[in-house]
């Protein structure tokens, strides 16, 4: 599936995502750009891992 670049307005940073982001030096601004697949578009672990695996495209 193609991933559209949208700003994730409902950015919910779970402790786990926070931990992953820190390890990879991903800023909150960058986090906010990752599309979330959780409830109401919230970011889940798999979303940020996918984003990292994709080479942080945006």
């Amino acid at each position, binding site marked *: 599936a193609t991933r559209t670049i949208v700003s994730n307005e409902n950015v919910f940073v*779970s*402790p*786990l*995502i926070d*931990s992953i982001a820190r*390890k990879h030096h991903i800023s909150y601004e960058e986090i906010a750009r990752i599309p979330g697949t959780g*409830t*109401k578009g919230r970011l*889940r*672990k798999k979303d940020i891992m996918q984003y990292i695996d994709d080479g942080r495209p945006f």
Partner: protein
Amino acid sequence: MSKYDVIVLGSGPGGYVTAIRASQLGLKTAVVEKESLGGVCLNWGCIPTKALLKSAQVFEYLNHAEDYGLKATGVDKDFTAVVKRSRSVAEGMSKGVQFLMKKNKIDVINGFGKIKPGKKIDVDGKEYSADHIIIATGARSRELPNLKQDGETVIGYRKAMTLKEQPKSMIVVGSGAIGVEFASFYNSMGTEVTIVEYMPHVVPVEDEDVSKQFERSLKKAGVKVMTGSSVEKVEKTKSGVKATVKTKKGEETLEADIVLSAVGIKTNIENIGLEDVGIVTDKDKIIVNDWYQTNMPGYYAIGDVTPGPALAHVASAEGITCVEKIAGMHAEKIDYSNIPGCTYASPEIASVGMTEKQAKEAGYELKVGKFPFSASGKASASGAKDGFVKVIFDAKYGEWLGCHMIGAGVTDMIAEAVLGRKLETTGHEVLKTIHPHPTMSEAVMEAVADAYDEVIHL
């Protein structure tokens, strides 16, 4: 011909919950059931077994009254009364579902339902139609060819919870949740119980530490455990049965009054019209997508009849998800990696997520913590020091990969781990969540602390 928005075939915890949620969402709903409302769970599964196990627990207390500074002389069980209590609890629950059906204005159609093309259901000759047909016909006890259930010497779970007389000795084949719950119950009641398990450990889906601890507890309680073994043959004798068991060391013969076969389930997919409609099944299960749609539009399936863990809470959650999607809600897919499993034997077992072995095999580097109840103040005060909480974290990001508990009351404690994992916690938050003292639940916090070398009471 009556027309519904939704017809649910089967009224187990899958079916009746689905029907209630559908009705809440404004859908005109009917449920078809050939037996008592509530399915296996309420009538022959979750509920009546827990009632039996409660009697067993109380019986243990009676037998150990002195440990608590108390006295009781003529302690005995009335097996018939224990069974009767269990049946009356089950009946009460089934009546409760009846009430819920009425309250939610759901039509209950009694009889054997068979789905037909064109989104119709035939119930004993009468036809009903719906926009959405949800199959929730569940499952029954699986029969092995060399362990045919005759209802007398080789029995399944239904018979095992309604025996007229308590057997003096029993062979339980299979040590999954159902097998060990019955083994635990009958052992507490004074039956001589032998468990025969094919796998190298009892409760083989659990973390190995849990399996080992559980086996120790079973043996301490007097249950004979044969792992890596299988029943080859069962013969009737004058007084009961003779079972030929293949063990690692060769063949062994066991004699007992009765054999309980608890080797898994077989889905109810026969004669319900799947072939007529053209619904695809595989390995005894109806194949569905994330929203429980079968390959045929308008036909859905949930619960034991589909792949995934055969558990009541899964059946209910699947049904809710299925109708929320049908109703056009922003439904949420079920995360099958976060389903708790519980065994209500003595001691209880509860777990969620990966076992240590699974996590290692998945390539994670781990932080593992364990806190035994022997170090818990509440457990000491309660005289329930057996067991532990084990937690497994990914060392890299701190993800809570798995939580495994064995001990008194743990089936009510696992929810914390399930919610924590749902909210993508790391160990840190659990550790800094102030757990009340003195409780068994402190063991969760301490186990996490142990994983991070911060444990206090070890």
